[in-house]
C-alpha cells in the first residue's frame, strides 16, 4: 500500500471528519479567491477606463468631479457644462500638448424616441485621442455623421436596424471591448452627430436634447513628454478659472476611498472566517490524531519511521485541502463569473473578470494558500503524533 492509498483510506474511513475539514477548506479558499478576484477585477477595470480615456489630465467644470467620475465609472447620466473657450485657454497652458473636448449627454429612459437610457459621449474627431486609435485599428476610418460606436453592452434591439436617440436613427458601426464599467453602456459619437441629434430632437423626440451653445462637458488633456501631469493640472487650475483639473493618477480617488472601506470590511470578515475555519481544521485533526494514537503506535511498531507517519498524516490533510480548495475556487469563480453584472450594479463598483492567464495564476495562488493554511493548522497535532513512542501509544486505552 502506497502512502497516498493509506491517506485516502483514512480520508474515506472517517467520512464526517473529512467532510467538515473539506467544507472548512472550501469556505476559506472560496472566500480568499473571491476577495482576490474582486480586488483584481476592480483594479483591472479602473486601469482599463484610464487607458481608454488616454488622458494625462481630465478637466471638468468646478464642482462636477464626482458626477463625471460616476458617469465614467457607472454610466450614470450627467449634465455638466463649461464654456468652450476653456479649450483654447487650456491649450495655452505651458506643458499641454493636446486638448480634446467632450460632451456628456443622456438619452431618455422608457421613451419611444430612445432605444434605452444610456450615457452618450460626443467627441471632436479633429482632436480626439480616446476613440480615434480604436477606430483606426478596427474600422479603418473615422465616424461619419449618423454613426456611433458603443460600449460592449450597447446593442441594436432585435428586429431593428438602427439605434434611436432622441428620435434620430444612429448606425452602430462597432463595439468597444468590455471594461466592466459604465463605459460599457455608453455610446460614442462625433460632435457633428450630437448637434444633428439635438436639432432633430425638437421635432422627433418627446423632449428636446439641449446642448448649450459654445459649451463642452469636459476636456481631456495630454501633456508634453517629461511634464508631470500633477504639475500640469495645478497650472491649468491656476490659469483657467471655474474648472477642476484631475491628473490621471488622481481619477476616481473618491471611489477608491469608498471601495477601500468596503474591501477593509470584507477583509476583516475574511480574516475572521479563515481563522475560525483553520482553527476548526486544527482541532479536528488534533482529535483525529488522539483517537488514532494506538493505530499510529502499531504502524510505528511495524517499522514505519517517524517521517513516514508524518508524511501519511500530511498527505491526508493535503488530499482534503486540495479537494476542498479546488471545489471552493471553482464555485467562487463560477458564481463571480455568472453574477459579474449584478456585482457591478449592486455594489456600484467596476468589475472585470480577469483574463485566463491571470485567472490561472489566481487559481494556483488560491490552492497554494489553501494547502499552506491547512498545513499550518495541522502542523502541531501531526508533528506531535509522529513523535509518539510506539510502546507508550500501544498501551493506551
Amino acid at each position, binding site marked *: 500500500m502506497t502512502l497516498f492509498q493509506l491517506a485516502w483510506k483514512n480520508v474515506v474511513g472517517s467520512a464526517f471528519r473529512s467532510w467538515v475539514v473539506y467544507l472548512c477548506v472550501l469556505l476559506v479558499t472560496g472566500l480568499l479567491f473571491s476577495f482576490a478576484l474582486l480586488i483584481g477585477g476592480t483594479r483591472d477595470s479602473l486601469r482599463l477606463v484610464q487607458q481608454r480615456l488616454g488622458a494625462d489630465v481630465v478637466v471638468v467644470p468646478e464642482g462636477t468631479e464626482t458626477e463625471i467620475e460616476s458617469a465614467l465609472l457607472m454610466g450614470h447620466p450627467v449634465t455638466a457644462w463649461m464654456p468652450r473657450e476653456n479649450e483654447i485657454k487650456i491649450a495655452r497652458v505651458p506643458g499641454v500638448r493636446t486638448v480634446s473636448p467632450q460632451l456628456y449627454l443622456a438619452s431618455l429612459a422608457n421613451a*419611444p424616441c430612445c432605444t*434605452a437610457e444610456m450615457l452618450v459621449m460626443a467627441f471632436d474627431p479633429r482632436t480626439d485621442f480616446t476613440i480615434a486609435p480604436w477606430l483606426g485599428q478596427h474600422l479603418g476610418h473615422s465616424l461619419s455623421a449618423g454613426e456611433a460606436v458603443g460600449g460592449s*453592452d450597447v446593442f441594436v434591439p432585435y428586429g431593428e436596424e438602427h439605434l434611436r436617440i432622441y428620435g434620430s436613427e444612429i448606425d452602430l458601426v462597432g463595439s468597444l471591448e468590455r471594461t466592466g464599467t459604465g463605459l460599457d453602456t455608453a455610446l460614442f459619437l462625433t460632435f457633428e452627430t450630437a448637434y444633428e441629434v439635438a436639432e432633430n430632437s425638437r421635432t422627433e423626440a418627446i423632449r428636446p436634447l439641449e446642448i448649450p451653445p459654445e459649451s463642452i462637458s469636459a476636456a481631456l488633456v495630454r501633456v508634453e513628454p517629461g511634464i508631470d501631469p500633477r504639475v500640469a493640472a495645478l497650472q491649468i487650475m491656476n490659469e483657467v478659472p471655474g474648472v477642476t483639473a484631475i491628473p490621471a493618477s488622481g481619477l476616481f480617488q473618491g471611489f477608491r476611498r469608498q471601495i477601500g472601506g468596503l474591501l477593509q470590511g470584507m477583509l476583516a470578515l475574511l480574516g475572521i472566517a479563515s481563522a475560525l475555519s483553520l482553527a476548526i481544521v486544527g482541532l479536528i485533526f488534533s482529535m483525529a490524531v488522539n483517537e488514532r494514537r494506538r493505530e499510529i503506535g502499531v504502524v510505528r511498531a511495524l517499522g514505519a519511521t517517524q517521517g513516514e507517519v508524518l508524511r501519511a498524516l500530511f498527505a491526508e490533510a493535503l488530499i482534503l485541502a486540495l479537494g476542498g480548495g479546488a471545489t471552493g475556487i471553482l464555485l467562487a469563480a463560477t458564481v463571480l463569473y*455568472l*453574477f459579474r453584472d449584478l456585482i457591478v*450594479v449592486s455594489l456600484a463598483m467596476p468589475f472585470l473578470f480577469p483574463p485566463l492567464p491571470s485567472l490561472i495564476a489566481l487559481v494556483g495562488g488560491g490552492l497554494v494558500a489553501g494547502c499552506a493554511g491547512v498545513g499550518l493548522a495541522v502542523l502541531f497535532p501531526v508533528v506531535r503524533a509522529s513523535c509518539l513512542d510506539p510502546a507508550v501509544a500501544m498501551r493506551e486505552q
Partner: protein
Amino acid sequence: MRVLAVLIMILAILIGVVPQFFNCQYDGKTLVLANGREVPMKCYWTARAALIIAVPLLAVGFMMAFTRRVQTVRVLGVLGAILGVMAILLPTLLIGVCQHTGASCSLVMKPALILAGILVIVVSLASVAVSGRRVEQAP
C-alpha cells in the same frame, strides 16, 4: 443519498421560484407592438418554462429520497442531470432573456438558472456515482 435528494429538491425550488420574481414582466416592463398592444418579453416565457423543469426535478428529488433501489437512483440521477442541462439551455439557447444587461432577467434570472443547472448536474451525477459505489460494496 438523502442529502443529495434534498439538495436536488432545494435546487428545483430555486429553479421554479427565482425566475418568477426576476423577469421584466414582474418589473412592469412589456414589449409595445406597433399597434400599441403590450406583450410579455421573452424572459417571461423563460420564467414560465422554468416551472416545467422545476416540477419534474422536484419529483426526481422526492423519489430519490425514498427509493432504495440502486437502478432507480441511477435512472433518477440521469433524469436529474438532463433536467439540469435543460435549466441551462432555457435562458441561453432555447428561449433566452432580454438583451439589456441592466434588466433583472439578465442580472439575476439567467445566472441563477445557469448556476442552479450546473449544481443539479453535479449533484445528480454524484448520486449516480454514489449508487455505483453502493453496488460495488454490496456482498
